[in-house]
């Protein structure tokens, strides 16, 4: 907590900002999203391979954002941010992935009507 005698602007995290990285990060992410949009609009892929392709593009854009926008690397200034991110991503995947996997089985096991005929119940008088 002692006052930083050095000039705050000389701090490595301030000096880390660099225009080229941000612009290239911006453009790459946009291109990846545009590619995903094209896949979505043309709809020529079956659902499963489409989903995998778009997820691949999404992961690519997340990696570009992490490296170019956030500028994460394993240098002394960023080691704790990168490490904590690497430890949190599995938790993100576990909580979403396991839940969705679980609820697919729960849905089929607890749904009364087969998924197809789900019109408004007309049996009630």
């Amino acid at each position: 907590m002692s006052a930083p005698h050095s000039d705050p602007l000389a701090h490595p995290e301030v000096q880390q900002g660099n225009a080229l990285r941000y612009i290239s990060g911006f453009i790459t992410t946009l291109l990846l999203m545009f590619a995903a949009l094209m896949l979505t609009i043309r709809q020529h892929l079956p659902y499963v391979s489409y989903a995998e392709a778009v997820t691949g593009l999404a992961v690519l854009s997340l990696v570009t954002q992490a490296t170019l926008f956030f500028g994460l690397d394993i240098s002394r200034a960023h080691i704790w941010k990168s490490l904590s991110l690497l430890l949190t991503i599995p938790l993100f995947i576990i909580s979403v992935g396991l839940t969705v996997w679980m609820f697919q089985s729960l849905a089929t096991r607890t749904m009364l009507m087969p998924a197809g005929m789900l019109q408004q119940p007309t049996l009630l008088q």
Partner: protein
Amino acid sequence: MKIISALTWLLVLGLASCASGDYRLFHPVNLVAGVEWWSTLFEVGIMSLIIVPVALLIVWCLWRYRKGAGAAYDPEFTHSLVLEILVWGVPLIIVAICGFVSIRTIHAVDPYSPGVLAKAEAAAAPIDIDVVTTDWQWLFIYPAQHVASIDEMVVPQGRVVHLRLTSTSVTNDFYIPQIAPMIDIMPGMRTEDAFDAAKLGVFTGFSADFSGAGFSWMQFATRIVPPADFSSWVARAAASPNALSYGAFTKLAQPTVNEGAKISYFSAPDPQLFDKVVMAADSGVVYPVSNELTRSVANLEIGPAKPTGAATK
């Protein structure tokens, strides 16, 4: 010495008070519960291979290395690879064994299709019963026998029973300690359960999942009877004057506390009653419990809340 005397006195008190009371879970009465009880015993046996020696080791260390006992004192003994391997390895082996047993027994007693009953199910066609839990009562519908009963489930001996369960309002748990594997009963959904009626007798079933103010009065009797008595029971139920249409059911499903689980019968229940209850819950029909009701349920002057069929959209 004070510690030892206290511990022994404690043990005596514990064992003495264990003697009273009937331990339902210790006496499984059918195949399904038998598997469950076996896996409990197996688990306790395997785990005590670790727990008991460690407890004895600790007690021995406490006695042996107490200050002033002059036992060997070695402050450098802080690491040994052999012990580390042992400490991680043995529990891993135990967990591997328990894991294998766990996976096997899950398939054996899976409420939806217990593996252990596969043979029995092939032998005789299972009896289908639809269970609908309302706010604090159990409704059992026998679609094949065209009868329904409240707070009593009668099953012929030697047959496999297959249940479809749903609730009108909140989540309950179908729990008959010595017989059926437990399964949640949720509104708007159909869960299944299955057990084999092996031994004659009357067994009390409870709801294990808390379901509101009248939860403590929500138990039902399960009677496993010889097949002849079962058909006479079905005849007696079919003779009951009140039929059970969906409209009658909505009145019956209003929050009421069935003090002492009084049994009542219905003849000719609506054949699609179960499906209608599920779809009604899906479309938002609720049986609200008013604030006053929860306060007054204590002294049981239950005026059914205004029968609101429609949900608060």
